């Protein structure tokens, strides 16, 4: 189960089916992202696709067709796209059209297109189910930054489509289980199940072991997206924000134009692929090695004296150029991360965050938070970090009789933190209230004590003590202990309850985090007999998560 491989295979099929010739690829906004997540433009060019066009932007130069081009059309099957494509087919600008839809398309829509193809330019119409963003081999996103506020009107439908596409592209027909406490999980599970049954011919796979689709709700774990992160990918997303594999660095002081936006793709960048899950200290070491490697290469390039040197130079120059681009990119990114670390005192913040989430000690935690929030001690603390600390404290101790959320809020006001940020404290508590009440029990305390002794043995890194809730759920799942009343199943017919599934797709409504992605990766490596894929409506960092929470709470109340 590899979602990147699945999307790549589809695109390769799409490009090869149209036979050799110069090609243009016409896409919409969303499918452009789908393709750009797995292939760079130069890779696509090697597949004879020389031009890219957006169907929703491209109507300006209407008469300037190139009849000798083959046109690959890759669109989501939306009404708007059908209309635009019909218009295009009435006055075709290219010689032949190969039409691909990213999901199940209505027959009526195909009929409309056929009726508009008066010049018989369409050679192929096909559904290729890549209706999701493949981020890493085990991680996908649907690109819905807020999904609760428009759940009924749009997000639910889009999420169903995304999940159906994931299942079809991986050729899985699953048993569906969902988090009972969440109404949205139940709705989603039902809709997916309905569609799977309706399109039973598509889902007729021969599978010896039925895969599992587990649908969860972000509200069961509001803590994970709030924490500062220390592994490369998660850290870049938390501090600089990764958007479709792209990181915007234009705000960095003195940045050169080439580096204003950099691409971080594990498929195209071996250094990134290797370091994606390493913690910040190790990356620093590897960056140093990368630099030294580069410098030794650069030095060997300096002495171009003999003909042999020149020849060697010419022959290795392309690789050298590539390497230098890569070095500059990672040095800039890591440099920016490290300056943010020291500027905002993130080490101190993170230590307290981790302590609150993985230990229980109200009085000392309250003290540490107070100390950090004190204006006199800490001028450099970012507003959002201050607020997040109070939120974490609140999530943990809101039912503690002695809690001092009010006092901490006063401290925040003293720091002149904007009202709307402070307002997100009650929002998050409200957002998760339905879920956390029952979590706070004796079992938790035992687990925390265990964690504490681990700490004594010096295994834990202070900054990576926290484990996301998903870790525990999956561990229960593997041990066959996952509870039927908390995570019920939809399809009652099959009775292989005790069978341990080999393929597990975990989907989280409300978004996932890169920390959870790392958890899934570790599970995949730890339990080679089971394959896990993780997906979410989006991939959150703390900033985007707080936005989603505020959005959700505003709508629900």
């Amino acid at each position, binding site marked *: 189960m590899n979602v990147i491989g699945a999307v790549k295979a589809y695109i390769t099929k799409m490009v090869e089916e149209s036979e050799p010739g110069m090609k243009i690829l016409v896409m919409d906004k969303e499918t452009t992202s789908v393709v750009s997540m797995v292939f760079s433009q130069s890779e696509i060019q090697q597949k*004879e696709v020389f*031009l890219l066009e957006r169907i929703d932007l491209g109507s300006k130069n209407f008469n300037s067709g190139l009849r000798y081009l083959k046109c690959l059309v890759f669109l989501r099957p939306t009404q708007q796209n059908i209309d635009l494509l019909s218009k295009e087919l009435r006055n075709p600008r290219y010689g032949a059209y190969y039409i691909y839809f990213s999901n199940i398309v209505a027959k009526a829509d195909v009929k409309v297109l056929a009726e508009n193809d008066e010049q018989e330019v369409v050679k192929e119409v096909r559904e290729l189910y890549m209706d999701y963003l493949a981020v890493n*081999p085990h991680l996908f996103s649907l690109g819905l930054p807020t999904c609760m506020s428009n759940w009924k009107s749009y997000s639910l439908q889009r999420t169903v489509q995304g999940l159906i596409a994931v299942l079809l592209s991986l050729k899985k027909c699953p048993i569906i289980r969902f988090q009972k406490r969440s109404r949205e999980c139940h709705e989603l599970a039902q809709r997916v199940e309905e569609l799977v049954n309706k399109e039973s011919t598509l889902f007729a796979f021969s599978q010896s072991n039925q895969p599992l689709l587990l649908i969860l709700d972000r509200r069961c774990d509001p803590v994970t997206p709030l924490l500062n992160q220390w592994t490369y990918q998660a850290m870049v997303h938390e501090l600089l924000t990764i958007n479709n594999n792209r990181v915007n660095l234009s705000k960095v002081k003195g940045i050169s134009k080439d580096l204003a936006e950099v691409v971080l793709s*594990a498929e195209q960048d071996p250094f990134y692929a290797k370091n994606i899950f390493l913690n910040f200290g190790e990356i620093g070491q590897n960056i140093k090695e990368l630099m030294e490697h580069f410098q030794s290469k650069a030095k060997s390039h300096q002495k171009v004296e003999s003909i042999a040197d020149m020849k060697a130079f010419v022959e290795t120059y392309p690789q050298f150029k590539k390497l230098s681009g890569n070095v500059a990119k990672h040095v800039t990114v890591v440099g920016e991360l490290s300056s943010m670390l020291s500027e905002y005192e993130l080490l101190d913040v993170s230590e307290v965050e981790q302590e609150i989430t993985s230990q229980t000690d109200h009085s*000392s935690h309250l003290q540490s938070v107070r100390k950090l929030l004190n204006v006199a001690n800490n001028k450099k603390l970012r507003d959002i970090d201050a607020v997040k600390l109070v939120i974490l404290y609140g999530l943990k101790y809101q039912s503690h009789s002695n809690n001092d959320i009010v006092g901490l809020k006063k401290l925040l006001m003293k720091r002149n933190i904007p009202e709307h940020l402070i307002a997100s404290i009650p929002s998050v508590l409200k957002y998760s209230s339905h879920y956390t009440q029952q979590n706070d029990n004796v079992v938790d305390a035992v687990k925390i004590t265990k964690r504490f002794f681990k700490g004594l043995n010096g295994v834990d890194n202070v900054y990576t003590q926290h484990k996301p809730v998903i870790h525990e759920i999956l561990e229960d799942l593997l041990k066959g202990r996952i509870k039927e009343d908390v995570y019920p199943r939809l399809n009652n017919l099959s009775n292989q309850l005790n069978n341990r599934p080999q393929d597990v797709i975990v989907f989280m409504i409300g978004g996932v985090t890169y920390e959870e992605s790392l958890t899934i990766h570790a599970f995949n490596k730890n339990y080679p007999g089971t394959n896990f894929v993780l997906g979410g409506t989006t991939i959150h960092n703390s900033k985007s998560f707080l936005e989603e929470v505020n959005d959700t709470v505003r709508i629900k109340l």
Partner: protein
Amino acid sequence: MAEWSPESQIQEGFLCPVCYKDLRSPGNLLSHFVELHSEEQDLLKSIKDLVGKAKKKILKLDENELESFKTEMSLQKIGIEYSEPQAPGQTRSMTEYFRNVRRERLDHRTSETNRLIIRLDKLLRIDGPDRKLREQELVVWLDGSTVSRCPSCTASFNITRRQHHCRLCGSIMCNSCSYFLPYEIAKTIVAPVYSDTNKANAIASKAEGDTLRLCAHCMNMLDSRNQAQMLQVNQPVICQLYMRLQKIKNDLQPSLELYDKMYNSMMSGEQTFRLQDVQSLRSSIAQQAEILDAISKRIISVPLNPEQPKAILLQNSIRRATTQYIKEYLLVLPILPSAEELYRIRQERLTRNVSTSTHPTVSAVKKIAVTTGWSPDNLSIENVIPEISDEDPLMQQIAIVRNYIKQARSANRFEEVASLEENLEFLKKAYREQQLAFKNDKVAV
């Protein structure tokens, strides 16, 4: 403990049982107790016991988990692997359905277009002063007396805006809504019809620059047919160049794979390929790279229709892709060792082989099967009757194989050169043995 607490609330953590101070770790608690409450020895002992027992129990419970945690930590160090190509997932073709719907609709349109073309053909043959009249005989013109406005632009007809008729369908429109089809183009549209009837010269006398007045609908029908035809006949320069470019790329692929194979075999010290062969393959790849570069330069300099901004983008993109291809696939071929280096590599392998294998050459010869159909097994030396003449089959074979080697080398088929050469060696050896046997026979006689 709870009822002793002054606020009578529950405290948690590592509390000292005497002063309720939270010491946050068992170590701290122990040292705190030893320092401050050492007089209460029995309590100290019980605390020590308690802590020890609890620690033992928890640690034991934890041991397994700790192990898995440790491996987990080390496994995290593994990054993401490159996604290997895999088979595409489920797909569903709608092409069949699409074609069926389209066919139903297009049958009508095709017959209409054909009718227009037959009419056009007839119109083109009309010549002479009564042309207008005869045109009306062929196509009945619509009666204009009841039409007061142009059907396509709705402007009313008057003295300055007069009614006009489409020569193909007879419908009415104003002058600005008329399209004019030059006779020259009209001729090309109906050309197939003419060649059938062989009356092409019948319209040769028509004055050039003459046009036919058509309505938008008929013009559109003829136009799309015409374009489809043009596409089949005319290929722009860029297409021809591009086809050449792709052909070279496709032809290069096996050479690249072969080079890779030859290089690896040579660097591991095998004698299968000769250095100069590999060198000549390398230089032929370099030549192709130059040709690719030259073609892509020509593509970028093809003169453009200014109405097609897309074409400029296309040309640039092809050029970029080609240079990228050359850089990534052709310029990165590993550099060959010099003759001395190669000699050293081979010596190293020889010394390695001496210790490991005893008779490597014999078995190697047996395995060879050449695409030319010649195989060493066909010649068993014992059965060959000694004969010295030009028809000696061995000598013939040797000559043939030499010829093959020459051919294979000029065609850059170095794998075959290698196996053929081994065959040649074998033949030579057989020939020598045969000669020797012959001599011995003579001596015996």
